[in-house]
């Protein structure tokens, strides 16, 4: 079985999830639980770092779609960073860059979250 792991960390006021391995119909429920946990704790500034994400299928993509509305309603956002070209290509095929901010580097994404907080003060 191909493995999938999620690690959590905090960068300033941004909650970062590091994804590792293979995200398919078998492992997508793990990501679903991770989002549910953050949303329940009202942690709405979520950055998903995909540096070690080797694979994603529509089951994984569907998880991002399932929670974006709740997260934005809570005043936050789901942003993504550090995707390999292989993984980015699949997000791109489904038009994700139209609705999600995808950054090449995690720091840029964190800055964007911080900039939003400054402007909303």
């Amino acid at each position, binding site marked *: *079985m*191909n493995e999938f792991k999620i690690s959590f960390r905090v960068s300033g006021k941004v909650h970062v999830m590091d994804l590792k391995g*293979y995200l*398919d*119909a*078998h492992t997508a429920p793990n990501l679903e639980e991770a989002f549910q946990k953050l949303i329940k704790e009202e942690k709405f500034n979520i950055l998903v770092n995909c540096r070690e994400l080797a*694979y994603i*299928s*529509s*089951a994984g*993509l*569907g998880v991002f*779609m*399932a929670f*974006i*509305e709740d997260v934005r309603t809570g005043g936050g956002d789901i942003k993504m960073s550090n995707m390999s070209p*292989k993984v980015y*290509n*699949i997000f791109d*095929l*489904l*038009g*994700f860059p*139209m*609705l999600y901010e995808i950054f090449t580097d995690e720091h840029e994404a964190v800055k964007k979250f911080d900039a939003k907080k400054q402007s909303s003060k």
Partner: protein
Amino acid sequence: MQKNNRANKDDGCYRKKEIGTLTSGGNQKTTRLNLRIPSQTEKLNMAREFVADAAKVFGFKEDDVNNIALAVDEACTNIIKHAYSYDADKEIDIVVSMKKPEFEILIEDRGKHFNPNQVPVPNMKEYMSHYKRGGLGMYLMKKLMDKVEYSIHPKKNVVRLIKYLH
């Protein structure tokens, strides 16, 4: 790749390899590989690795190999969810037939019929803006492969995926 159809007890999957000369008009041989997997999402990686290995040997570049593996994952996921409603005791047959330039994958199940005409082609912009979920698999398959066909037979449903080696 094994050359017989005995079960590999380690992973619960059956493999078979045949080389035939069934082609019309050409002298080129068709190589056919079979894999039978249990209808379980934890076996999806077996299906992906099986077709990816065949696609590499056939001569596809890495991007195409990845796309073919993803299309097969999507087809199998749809079968597990919809045709078999997550019944883990059912089976999915994957048959790869290779004759240049055509790389054909048949994915067969014996579950509930599926009528692709009842699934609307999504307008992705509208689809995304309403945060809809599911139904993405078929859209991806059509984007990733040159041909996607569904057929219903008396005892089985078949998804036929084709990619041409250019």
